[in-house]
């Protein structure tokens, strides 16, 4: 009986909020409410099968439907998906194995540049055109998804091999250095051989093949190509995120996951219990890096253009803030953290910027005490709330580590079986 009641509530909320978004396609609160319906689904005591199928309906049908009404929301959903996958990858390194990686974005960059170089005419610069002509055909994209995993894992392995013996804080600084090295290399490897095209970046990057377009047309759907690509990337990201979540969950509940946890809690004790420290740490590093690698490939295909500016230290810390916000070592935490931070940056900060612009153009004059009359058009133009991502990341990190170090969605096993000492 109760189960029916909860099911009713879930259906009501999901239906209601999606209707709201459809009726008010430009209302931010409506979209936020719709996004939170997934959270509600997770919390309601529904049977697992019911919960998964409802979530599937929301993600696979309602979201694309909403996205076809307001394309920007689909863009947000794609970005959220990308960051969820990144946060899950970093969560393995930082949260599960307890290795602070401050250069995580480097692996993302490796994946992104991998497809960008071979999926555009860039590779012609250093591979003779008599041999093979670039860009590669769009269908190679799927091969490169796998190659992205491999490249990410290899980079993680190569970096990890020398540095994983270092103590925690030194490891953090070295990974930071590595992240910067990759960015500087991307910035400067336009000579002696033009590998990355330097600060100008690479464009146009090949997109994945639209093999189903004729089929859709036969069925009578006519969707414009850009909208189709948006939907395409949305489902691609959804698929990858599902795969990443599954992989992380399996790892978490495996001996490997327990070994990581043991290393995180007490390295010395773990080693004396026979946990192979270096091998396990390398595995954590390589797994986390491989997630970033595959997402990087998708990112460059989606963006159509990449340059080193997308792979700064700030991005690494942004992903770290997501993990810390959600709760280190917690899978739902990483997902939630990534969603909240991305939504804050893309919706709330941008919304504030737009609002400030409206104020500026409104021509209003305020009478303030002490200051006197103040025309809103005088608001400093440099004051762009959308640019204050660092502030968001910083405040989240400081507040969380001081007041709620376990995150807003703490990892369960840590509280349950190990207990707190």
């Amino acid at each position, binding site marked *: 009986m109760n189960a029916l009641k909860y099911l009713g509530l879930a259906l009501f909320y999901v239906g209601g909020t999606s209707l709201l978004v459809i009726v008010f396609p430009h209302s931010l609160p409506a979209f936020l409410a719709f996004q939170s319906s997934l959270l509600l689904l997770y919390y309601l005591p529904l049977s697992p099968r019911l919960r998964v199928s409802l979530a599937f309906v929301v993600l696979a049908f309602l979201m694309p439907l909403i996205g076809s009404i307001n394309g920007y929301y689909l863009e947000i959903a794609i970005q959220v998906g990308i960051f969820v996958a990144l946060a899950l990858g970093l969560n393995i390194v930082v949260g599960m194995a307890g290795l602070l990686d401050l250069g995580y974005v480097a692996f993302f960059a490796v994946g992104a540049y991998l497809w960008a170089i071979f999926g555009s005419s860039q590779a012609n610069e250093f591979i003779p055109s008599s041999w093979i002509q670039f860009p590669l055909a769009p269908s190679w994209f799927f091969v490169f998804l796998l190659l992205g995993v491999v490249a990410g894992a290899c980079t993680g392995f190569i970096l990890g091999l020398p540095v994983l013996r270092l103590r925690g*804080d030194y490891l953090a*600084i*070295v990974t930071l250095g590595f992240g910067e090295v990759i960015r500087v290399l991307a910035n400067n490897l336009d000579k*002696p051989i033009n590998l990355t095209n330097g600060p100008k970046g690479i464009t146009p990057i090949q997109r994945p093949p639209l093999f189903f377009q004729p089929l859709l047309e036969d069925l009578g759907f006519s969707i414009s190509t850009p909208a189709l690509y948006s939907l395409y990337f949305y489902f691609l990201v959804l698929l990858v995120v599902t795969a990443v979540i599954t992989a992380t969950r399996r790892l978490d509940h495996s001996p490997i996951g327990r070994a990581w946890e043991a290393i995180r809690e007490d390295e010395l004790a773990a080693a004396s219990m026979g946990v192979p420290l270096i091998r396990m740490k390398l595995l954590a590093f390589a797994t986390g890096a491989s997630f970033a690698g595959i997402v990087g490939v998708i990112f460059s295909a989606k963006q159509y253009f990449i340059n080193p500016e997308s792979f700064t230290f700030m991005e690494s*810390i942004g992903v770290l803030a997501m993990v810390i916000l959600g709760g280190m070592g917690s899978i739902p935490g990483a997902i939630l953290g990534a969603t909240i931070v991305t939504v804050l940056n893309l919706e709330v900060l941008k919304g504030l910027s737009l609002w400030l612009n409206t104020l500026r153009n409104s021509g209003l004059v305020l009478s303030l005490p002490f200051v006197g009359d103040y025309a809103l058009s005088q608001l400093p133009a440099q004051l762009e709330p959308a640019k204050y991502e660092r502030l968001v990341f910083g405040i989240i*990190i*400081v507040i969380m580590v001081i007041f709620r170090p376990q995150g807003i969605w703490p990892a369960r096993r840590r509280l349950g079986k190990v207990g707190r000492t």
Partner: protein
Amino acid sequence: MEFALTLFPQVLVDGLVLGFMYALIALGYTMVYGVLQFINFAHSEIFVTGAFVGVEILLGFQSAGVLAGIPSWVLLPILVIAGMTASGFLAVVVERIAYRPLRNAPRLVPLLSAIGVSFVLQDAIRFMESIWRNAFYLTYPPLQGLDRRIQIGSTFDISVKSLVVIGSSILMLAALSFLVNKTKMGRAIRAVAQDPQTASLMGVDVNQVVSLTFLIGGAMGGAAGVLFGIQYTLISPYTGFIPGIKAFTAAVLGGIGNIPGAMVGGLVLGLLESFSASYLSLLTGGAFGAEYKDIFSFLILILILILRPKGLLGEVVGEKA
């Protein structure tokens, strides 16, 4: 080859200027590390705060129309002392708010907090300058007499600016050495660095010493900030990141926690960087140029940490503190 030789004195001076700047900043890292075994990642923003205080004073004087009337030997101490005060107090406040509650947390937690503070401070500075001046990239106005160059020999001249930076750095490093080695306060700092528990049993107020360490380290960073502004003129809230990382490299290079080590490490790194920036493209026939100088420092950092983590002068830091 001829060219390389005529370049040499200028490269040396540039390296010394850079090196002393790194040394001043590195002191903040190394002192805090010595006392708390923790990397104060926000120190680069403490340094930038000094630079911004300096530029605000100069721009204030300029808009009041008195800048041209004040001789540099009066202006410089004002700037440096103001920068030191602001940065020193900011460092103390940051420690109180963001680090002290985490004193007993696992080792990496205060580092995370420090990274957060660093980001918050960057955007806080940006926010304030955006409101106040509608710009956050600011330029130091030229100071009277400082841009003059003194001719030495027939091929080489040195700017007064560089001499001033080198001179005041040496002065401050000497004052710090005196403070740490010869005064009661310095003895308390060294005692806490060695063993906080025993020190507190001997009647040393550990919290006070920690605050003092942040004050001194922050003040050195602030002074470096002002000097940086005078030397390189353009500053932004994000200027601190690279010098901060390099100063940290310098601290590690000299042996972190070791005060003379930070000075030596700063100088070595400054010289290495200056020479690699100038000679790398000569040596490689133009294939790799000055743009790789940042990578060069990072590689040094990585190599030192892997091969000789206790640094050149070597202070052994506990393996698992």
